[in-house]
């Protein structure tokens, strides 16, 4: 029933050994690739304007982060633009989806445009966005919002309009109000799909911001990347690219943690601890009730 059983210690040890062995393999593979790449570079086999080698890229990274330190300004600019765009985009996306879910008229007359909207690459409107919003922050935020609006919209709408006949019968038979039906069944039921939509949106927000920066910007990792590339400082471009990866990874990790904590009921590994917490809370709040 429950998986409270403690494993014998030696199996735990065996598992650690196995995990260690597999991570050693990864490290060795990684070191081999980097090492080979570096050796080829040092021996003059690579053109540093096309494929700079690891030590050059590393030097650029060190410069960006610790010597000149110019990365921070660009990093935070992009991060802020993407984050603000993300929140605007998902707010609009989720609210529109909720309205659509509750209004058949809205769904019939507005939703088709959303489909056309979705098949049009959002990035394609970048020049128009720049024309409307100018060269500053606002155009980056607008593009980020536009690109990340769609996944939460579609996911929220799909999840909310999914019919759960038994659930609806149950709530109606218990005399539930529409409000209770929404907040206690429909909405929690939709959360896993909404969170999945948010994860997609976050990647979109970063993409939208960087593309808008390419077109015109005075700050941001996108423009930094472009400046390096125009000067044929490809090692600098690589260093910027790695920074973008780090930013993406950071945002993605935040979403993963959110998903893990919010949608706990889909994860067997979380259920045990949440169930213990709920039991402890009950005992604290309602200890007077005989069990």
């Amino acid at each position: 029933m429950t998986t409270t059983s403690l494993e014998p210690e030696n199996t735990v040890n065996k598992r650690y050994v196995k995990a260690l062995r597999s991570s050693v393999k990864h490290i060795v593979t990684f070191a081999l690739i980097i090492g080979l790449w570096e050796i080829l570079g040092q021996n003059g086999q690579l053109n540093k304007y096309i494929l700079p080698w690891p030590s050059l890229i590393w030097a650029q990274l060190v410069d960006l982060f610790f010597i000149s330190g110019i990365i921070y300004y660009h990093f935070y600019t992009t991060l802020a633009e993407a984050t603000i765009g993300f929140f605007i985009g998902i707010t609009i996306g989720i609210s529109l989806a909720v309205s659509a879910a509750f209004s058949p008229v809205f769904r019939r007359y507005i939703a088709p445009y959303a489909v056309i909207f979705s098949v049009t690459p959002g990035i394609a409107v970048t020049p128009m966005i720049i024309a409307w919003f100018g060269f500053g922050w606002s155009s980056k935020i607008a593009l980020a919002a536009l690109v990340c609006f769609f996944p939460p919209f579609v996911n929220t709408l799909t999840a909310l309009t999914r019919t759960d006949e038994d659930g609806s019968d149950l709530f109606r038979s218990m005399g539930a109000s529409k409000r209770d039906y929404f907040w206690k069944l429909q909405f929690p039921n939709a959360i896993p799909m909404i969170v999945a939509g948010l994860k997609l949106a976050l990647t979109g927000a970063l993409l939208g911001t960087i593309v808008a920066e390419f077109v015109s910007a005075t700050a941001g990792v996108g423009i930094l990347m472009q400046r390096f590339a125009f000067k044929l400082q490809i090692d600098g471009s690589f260093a910027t690219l790695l920074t973008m990866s780090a930013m993406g990874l950071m945002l993605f990790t935040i979403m993963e943690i959110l998903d893990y904590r919010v949608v706990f009921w889909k994860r067997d590994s979380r259920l045990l601890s949440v169930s213990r917490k709920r039991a402890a809370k009950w005992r604290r709040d309602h200890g007077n009730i005989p069990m």
Partner: protein
Amino acid sequence: MSDSLQEAGEAVSKPSATNSDVVIEANALTKAFSEEVVALQGASFKINEGDFISLVGPSGCGKSTLLRLVAGLIEKTSGSVKVRENEVTEPRTDIGMMFQKPVLLEWRTAVENVLLPSELTGKITDEDRSRAIQALHLVGLKDFEFHFPRQLSGGMQQRVALARLLQTGADILLLDEPFGALDEFTRERLNIELMNIVDGTATTSLFVTHNIAEAIFLADEVMVMTPRPGKLARIVEVPFERPRSLELQLTPEFNKIESEVRNILGSYV
């Protein structure tokens, strides 16, 4: 359940001539989804307080439709269906339902699920909480109060749903194949537990199943339904004393009723 017991006492003290112990009454009750699809045609029956009625028939014979009409979840096309002498037009608080699927909220622990009906009708009180705990104990889920549905087996999930049904305080239970998705052993055990819970109380139960033996074993009366269009073919009395044990199913009297029901269903089964 104590509420129901009190009501049973009152019902006995009332003069029987007023027909006051009829809880559910249907007259020529018909439901058609379209001209071609007649789910239920002209069903007429009376159910007395405290009775356990089984509704048996092959799939598509309108059992669930009948149940949902009584529950006030769907509108009838013609005829009438009354609960406690009032025409049913919407869900009532004295009616509780249970489905083939447990329909639990996955993000709530067992006791939080059981508390749902209390929560929907007002603020949860300590009395609600202790009733919920008692209901869980009654259905055999002591020590599982804080488990989430995913941590429970199918049978245990259905037990939570049963506890939630008890928590509603309803004294008319509409059960739509509640244990139909479970394995035979679990189903048999839960049937007996359900019977023990409602036996001797004023709780009126309407139990839908497509298992003939189960229908007879549990019920005071079996309503036999036939499909295309869904019709109430006959009501068969089940005269056996309560409490009943599983051995009852092996007696010739039981088999006689079983073959009677089978004959009514005839070519449909």
